[in-house]
């Protein structure tokens, strides 16, 4: 097998698609992204959020069969950036083999929600405003819905860390663990 054959088989950025579906942006993440492609895709997603005023972004990972730490960082940073724009990133379609590797690798993605499929993502995006998503697993600190409700909440979180998304989810996650 020649090297050029393998190159032809690579699934790169050219095949990615960003589609608008209701108030959800549907991003089909290609399999074989170079680092530059990953950054380009992140910019495309952020531009599309603004263009379409989308409050939800679904990163569809069903084609991705190799997820290294750089890819993990892409998911994480896209979620943080989207959060600053007022949109929430949801991940869907991570393969079982992929999640096993991610967890064993030690990758944690605080603040990133996952859903099973597009139906669940649509259902999530239809139930109320962003920020109140996945309300059942959230502790009292976000129970008031969108982050905009509690100005003090923002200030509190700002004092620990600048990225609101990180701290708020970490807080709620740990509080749900301790049962408070």
């Amino acid at each position, binding site marked *: 097998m020649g090297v050029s054959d393998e190159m032809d088989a690579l699934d790169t950025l050219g095949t990615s698609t960003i589609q608008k579906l209701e108030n959800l942006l549907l991003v089909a993440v290609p399999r074989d992204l*170079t680092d530059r492609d990953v950054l380009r895709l992140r910019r495309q997603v952020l531009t599309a959020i603004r263009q379409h005023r989308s409050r939800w972004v679904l990163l569809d990972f069903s084609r991705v069969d190799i997820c290294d730490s*750089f890819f993990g960082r892409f998911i994480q940073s896209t979620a943080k950036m989207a959060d600053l724009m007022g949109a929430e990133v949801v991940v869907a379609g991570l393969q079982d083999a992929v999640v096993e590797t991610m967890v064993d*690798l030690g990758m944690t993605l605080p603040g990133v929600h996952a859903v099973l499929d597009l139906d669940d993502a649509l259902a999530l995006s239809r139930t109320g405003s962003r920020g109140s998503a996945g309300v059942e697993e959230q502790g009292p600190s976000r129970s008031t819905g969108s982050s905009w409700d509690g100005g003090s909440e923002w200030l509190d979180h700002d004092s620990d860390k600048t990225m609101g998304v990180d701290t708020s989810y970490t807080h709620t996650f740990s509080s749900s663990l301790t049962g408070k």
Partner: protein
Amino acid sequence: MGEEQPVQRRFAIKSIVDVVRARRSGLGIALEMGFHQAEANKIAVVISELGRNIELYAGEGLVTVTKYDDRIEIVAEDQGPGIPDVERVMAGGYTTSQGMGLGVSGSKRLMDEFDIHSIIGQGTTIKAVKWLR
């Protein structure tokens, strides 16, 4: 019974595209050998992490994938600056790059055997093995 002559694939790493190509081939090789999808996936991620480090710190190097009857061996070698503090890198969470600081420490967790040989100013060789079970 003696061991079958191992089959080797060598991937010159000069850019991230080379890394992407090497990990994709590595996944195929591991699956062909009979590794479970999840194990093959881990092997591919290790090729990706080690290949990425070569590109990032040394600029260029070589990733060699060797098939044995009962195991796969990944060797990543470069003539780059070397790793100043191997222990710290192995412990994880340490990065000078855009990653999560998991490249080396995480790769070690994904494999059965993992050895680093690094000399400052001369280069780094990392050997990682996963056994077929």
